[in-house]
């Protein structure tokens, strides 16, 4: 097809440059990229990694995927023009404030609001009495009210709310609300919540577990337990983890506006706008179509903004009553009362290994403190167990977990949801086992990894796995051989690994059945720019950028031609939200399938113009042309305008739903994901044995994200995760007094590491090319947090020979352990403590050989499309292609405890001593 024919219809003087096409931007159509000099580069990720093929390979046009792309919303943020929750200022707004409980646990006898209502400038005072509908993020555990109906469950629980002309008046009104409480006996210690009490914190009716405060209990037994009965070496530890808060920069803020149309618009910095949408409909008793949830810019979420919140309900209630916009912005202490941070936990971790250096058993018992409400706790209870069944092949897995209510602010989901604490315990256990076996901990790990495309002991489907690459790259980068057990006293290095889900396989709300997890709409009009409508919540992690990149890549357009509209539920298709590291995997997959439809139309149009076969065409940078003869083709705009003939704007819709997978036992869906991320970190620390002060000097952080769609933001996530994890391991802690008062609900006393505590982090990106991920990508938002905790703890051991079992390792706690050891060894000074040493045993050679063999095995499995199944247990001599339960008679698979176990249960396991109300015999209920 000649060029003359192509531009027919446009006036053109001979010899002149053709006129710009409509919508092309004239003669300077290229936007200029921004300067990226100041951003640290990854080391180690550039080396060629054998990837194998990916189903999206043919869609690559070289536009943006794999390039360091600044986030599409970054300019708003760095110039201070981004509108966060509190920046939404509507005309005629009122200020809402919330009255909170001063008691840990009390029954509300009465509330007198008359005096508050009579204050000039107060427009509405609302209490919980009229709004009794329950809501909660998980449909199975809805237990929250907009405001307390009968009982307050922790200091800071919502009692009433006020809308007034300004904050001073609102605060004055709060002081005038008279609440008559009957104070009840609070439960602060989570261990006490396991027992039956007079007045459990919640009443779940027939599903209540005895008369206890156990909210959720889990029992799981998988494997052959013969080898555990007489293991070669064991590591047993009892851990105590303090609760931590997300510490995001932006406190919660919400604006509710009941518009003249009679519809409600709720402006809120939310990770899960869709669940807020549902909850608002429940609480306000109006249909969902009457509500528009507008997600503002989110100043950090990390899981802390992934519940529908009572204050969001309050703002809507006040707006409905006053007919004016109501804005509620939290003080920092209110953020701590809302919490939803990581659960304070007691974890008992027993690891067993056999003579061959194989992990023959993991026995975990996790008691987690849920605070006053359920939140995500149902899932957290499972995650504390099931998320440490990989990346190692294990002989048996025994897990008992319980989440209990206490009269404290509710715990919930936080970056690395449920996996962080137990992972730390596992990785320290492995270090301890290696110490006993006298082998190198990296070699030990390399010799015990699951291969690609395998099945874990509980039936998770592992597809891509870059764990081996992570470990090897970190070992090389940090100069492990020269440092481990060889550094002088007080100076140490340690290793830790991580494993995390890349998108929860089961959506939280699975009604209506077979709904997709993510949906993306595209719209392109004659200007050529692509509008993406998606409900995925960009909380700073860069989900807008990822979806823009995916579309730009498939259509061969620069990212500047893509605009993402992801804020309003009115215009966005439903997306479940930014949790469980699901957005890149699911939303980008949905975006790709939507873009493929547009791509097909463009190719068809080009084929029509050029009169060639569709199959012969490819898309390049704003041009569609024949692959074998690139001169034959048209520009993107020409193809687009052709495709638009007779119909106008092109639109398309794409969706993603996880494939069927996993086992059928109770709880099989928990932890199930279409892909998993892996990571390995090494941390170098200096410990002052005289003061117990730990300083992290440098971190080498390798993370397998499948494929780095945007290496810049993957590295950002790795570095940010290190900072957050370092907080939990070194300084951060929600401190409660014995009576249950939270001592540090402010950012001066809640010790987030400052720039002085932040070590140099060397991010190493490992790309395992996931077969189902968008262009091969997996998550990079939560998994990178996991390994930093055990890496630092193991490094502390390497430095001074002391194993901690309590986080955070604040100097006072570490010093106590140092003193104890100094006393037991009868030394004069902590500086004389013995420095840990390592002399390899014979097993080291065996493990090295096994690791080498496995490396070949893994590579083969990865590249072989006709690979056979591989089940966990093969390393113990089972047939790799048959599920272990079908070949081992003594294989146990149980999700309820036996009588024998209940005779002598572990701590969290004792939750199973109670009988659920519905299973009680008549007469037992009282």
């Amino acid at each position: 097809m000649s060029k003359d024919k192509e531009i027919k219809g446009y006036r053109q003087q001979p010899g002149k440059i053709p006129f710009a096409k409509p919508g092309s931007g004239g003669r300077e159509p290229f936007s200029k990229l921004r300067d990226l000099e100041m951003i640290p580069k990854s080391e180690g990720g550039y080396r060629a990694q054998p990837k194998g093929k990916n189903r999206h390979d043919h869609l690559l046009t070289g536009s943006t995927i794999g390039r360091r792309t600044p986030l599409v919303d970054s300019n708003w943020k760095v110039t201070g023009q981004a509108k966060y929750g509190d920046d939404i200022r509507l005309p005629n707004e009122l200020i809402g404030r919330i009255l909170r409980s001063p008691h840990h646990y009390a029954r509300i006898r009465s509330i007198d609001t008359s005096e508050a209502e009579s204050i000039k400038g107060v427009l509405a005072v609302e209490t919980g009495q009229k709004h009794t509908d329950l809501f909660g993020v998980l449909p199975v555990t809805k237990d929250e009210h907009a405001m307390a109906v009968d009982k307050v469950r922790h200091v800071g629980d919502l009692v009433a709310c006020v809308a007034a002309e300004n904050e001073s008046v609102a605060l004055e009104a709060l002081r005038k609300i008279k609440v008559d409480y009957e104070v009840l006996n609070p439960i602060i210690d989570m261990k006490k919540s396991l027992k039956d009490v007079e007045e459990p914190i919640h009443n779940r009716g027939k599903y209540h577990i005895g008369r206890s405060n156990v909210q959720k209990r889990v029992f799981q037994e998988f494997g052959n337990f013969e080898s555990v009965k007489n293991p070669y070496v064991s590591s047993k530890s009892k851990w105590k983890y303090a609760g931590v808060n997300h510490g995001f920069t932006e406190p919660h803020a919400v604006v509710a506006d009941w518009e003249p149309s009679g519809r409600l618009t709720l402006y809120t910095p939310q990770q899960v706008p869709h669940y807020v949408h549902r909850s608002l409909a429940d609480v306000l008793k109006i249909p969902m179509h009457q509500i528009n949830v507008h997600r503002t810019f989110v100043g950090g979420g990390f899981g802390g903004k992934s519940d529908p919140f009572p204050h969001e309900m309050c703002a809507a209630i006040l707006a409905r009553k006053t007919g004016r916009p109501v804005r509620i912005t939290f003080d920092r202490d209110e953020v701590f009362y809302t919490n939803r941070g990581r659960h304070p936990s007691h974890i008992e971790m027993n690891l067993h290994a056999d003579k061959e250096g194989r992990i023959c058993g993991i026995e975990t018992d996790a008691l987690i403190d849920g605070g006053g409400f359920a939140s995500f706790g149902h899932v957290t209870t499972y995650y504390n167990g099931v998320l440490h069944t990989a990346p190692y092949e294990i002989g048996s897995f025994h897990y008992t977990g319980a989440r209990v209510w206490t009269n404290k602010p509710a715990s919930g989901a936080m970056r690395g949801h449920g996996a962080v604490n137990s992972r730390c315990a596992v990785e320290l256990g492995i270090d301890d086992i290696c110490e006993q076996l006298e082998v190198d901990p990296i070699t030990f790990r390399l010799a015990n990894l699951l291969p690609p495309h395998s099945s874990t002991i509980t039936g998770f489907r592992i597809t891509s796995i870059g764990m081996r690459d992570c470990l090897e790259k970190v070992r090389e980068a940090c100069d492990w051989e020269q440092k481990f057990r060889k550094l002088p006293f007080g100076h140490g290095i340690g290793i830790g690994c991580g494993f995390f889900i890349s998108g929860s396989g089961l959506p939280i709300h699975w009604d209506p059945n077979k709904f997709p997890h993510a949906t993306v709409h595209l719209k392109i009009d004659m200007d050529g720019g692509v509008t993406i409508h998606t409900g995925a919540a960009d909380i700073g992690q860069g989900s807008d950028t990822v979806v823009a990149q995916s579309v730009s890549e498939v259509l061969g357009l620069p990212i500047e031609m893509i605009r993402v509209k992801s804020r309003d539920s009115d215009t966005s298709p439903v997306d479940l939200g930014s949790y469980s590291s699901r957005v890149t995997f699911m939303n980008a997959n949905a975006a790709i399938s939507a873009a493929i439809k547009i791509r097909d139309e463009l190719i068809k149009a080009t084929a029509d113009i050029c009169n060639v076969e569709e199959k012969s065409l490819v898309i390049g940078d704003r041009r569609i042309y024949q692959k074998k003869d690139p001169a034959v083709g048209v520009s993107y705009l020409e193809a687009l305008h052709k495709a638009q003939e007779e119909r106008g704007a092109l639109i398309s819709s794409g969706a993603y739903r996880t494939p069927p997978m996993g086992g059928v036992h109770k709880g099989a869906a928990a932890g199930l994901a279409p892909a998993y991320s892996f990571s390995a970190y090494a941390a170098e620390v200096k410990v002052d044995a005289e003061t117990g002060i730990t300083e992290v000097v440098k971190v080498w952080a390798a993370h397998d994200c499948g494929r780095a769609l945007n290496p810049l933001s993957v590295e950002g996530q790795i570095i940010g995760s290190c900072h957050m994890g370092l907080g939990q391991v070194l300084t951060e802690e929600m401190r409660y007094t014995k009576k249950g008062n939270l001592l540090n609900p402010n950012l001066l006393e809640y010790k987030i590491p400052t720039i002085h505590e932040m070590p140099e982090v060397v991010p190493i990106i490992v790309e395992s090319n996931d077969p189902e991920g968008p262009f091969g990508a997996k998550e990079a938002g939560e998994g990178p947090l996991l390994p930093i905790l055990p890496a630092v703890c193991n490094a502390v051991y390497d430095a001074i020979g002391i194993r901690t079992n309590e986080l955070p390792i604040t100097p006072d706690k570490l010093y106590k352990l140092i003193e104890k050891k100094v006393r037991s060894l009868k030394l004069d000074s902590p500086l004389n403590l013995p420095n840990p040493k390592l002399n390899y045993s014979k097993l080291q050679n065996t493990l090295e050989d096994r690791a080498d063999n496995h490396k070949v095995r893994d590579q083969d499995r990865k590249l072989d499309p006709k690979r056979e199944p591989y089940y966990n247990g093969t390393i113990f001599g089972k047939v790799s292609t048959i599920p272990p339960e079908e070949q081992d008679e003594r294989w146990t698979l149980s999700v309820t405890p036996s009588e024998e176990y209940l005779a002598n249960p572990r701590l969290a396991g004792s939750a199973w001593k109670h009988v659920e109300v519905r299973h009680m015999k008549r007469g037992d209920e009282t």
Partner: protein
Amino acid sequence: MKSPPFKLFQPTSIDEAIEISKKFVQEQEDFDWIAGGTDLLPNYKWHLNTKPNVISLASIEELHRLDSEHIGAMVRLHDLAKSEFAHPIIRKAASSIASVLIRQSGTVGGNIALDTRCFWFNQAEEWRRSIEWCHKCDCGTSADCRVIPNQNELCVATYQADLAPSLLVLNAKIHLCGPEGSRTLFLSEFFELDGIKRNVLKQGEIITHLTLDNDISSWSGDYQKLSLRKSWDFPEAGVAVAWRLSDESNNENFELRIATTALESVPRLHQKLTSDALKNNSTIDEIASKLKKDVKPVNNTTFPPNYRKKMVEVLCKKALGGLKGVL
């Protein structure tokens, strides 16, 4: 979170400032002084002992003077830390205070007269209501002390400022000015053992400046502090030492001073301890161990008192490190 409204006065001379304060004292009206405001304003936002009137010292030129022997009360901590005039111990202490931003605003006088701190006190209003208030800010309820209950006499809130011990070991004099005139005293006489009263300042009186002896350059020393993070945090323990060797071969004319902060309601110069130590020719370890026994922290800061006490020994050893071979 909003501070209650207050009326701000901005005098431009000491006389004018004292004039204003005198009036308030006579009329028995409550007021506060404000210097850098880095401590007062956060406290106001938490509704901690707020007053209806606030007198700012920022516009009084004469309070800003800084040279080797004279440190004005309104000298910014940042300027002190960077000053060529200031003694190295003072520079070290000043540069360790809070963060750069706070040092840019916080002042010497404000740091010396810093309000005492306690985790039952430095909390938002709602929080304090949940513990039914405390002795230091009882909101008219005459609430008990939450750290050591049943002793409604004394407030045990901790004095957590960094500058005082360094100035104490350099034997600084403090100059005050108030409605009843000016007076000068040794800094060691300035503090009073009560978390509420804190110091000898009378109603309407301000710190104008500190002076140091003209021979302080012959003193060497060190300041060591304990805090969880290297920025922002208030000290959990602080030890300043200063010594002078007139003749290095001879211990006879050896002088030594040790002061501590962040351990009690006042910073303290440990005079008896040092004089005993010199008399008995104690070693560094012995002095450090005695110092540990000489301080009595209570449980109201980040670290437990037991740990802070033990760390005083370590800090003292580190601070006296320059005397290895002498003691």
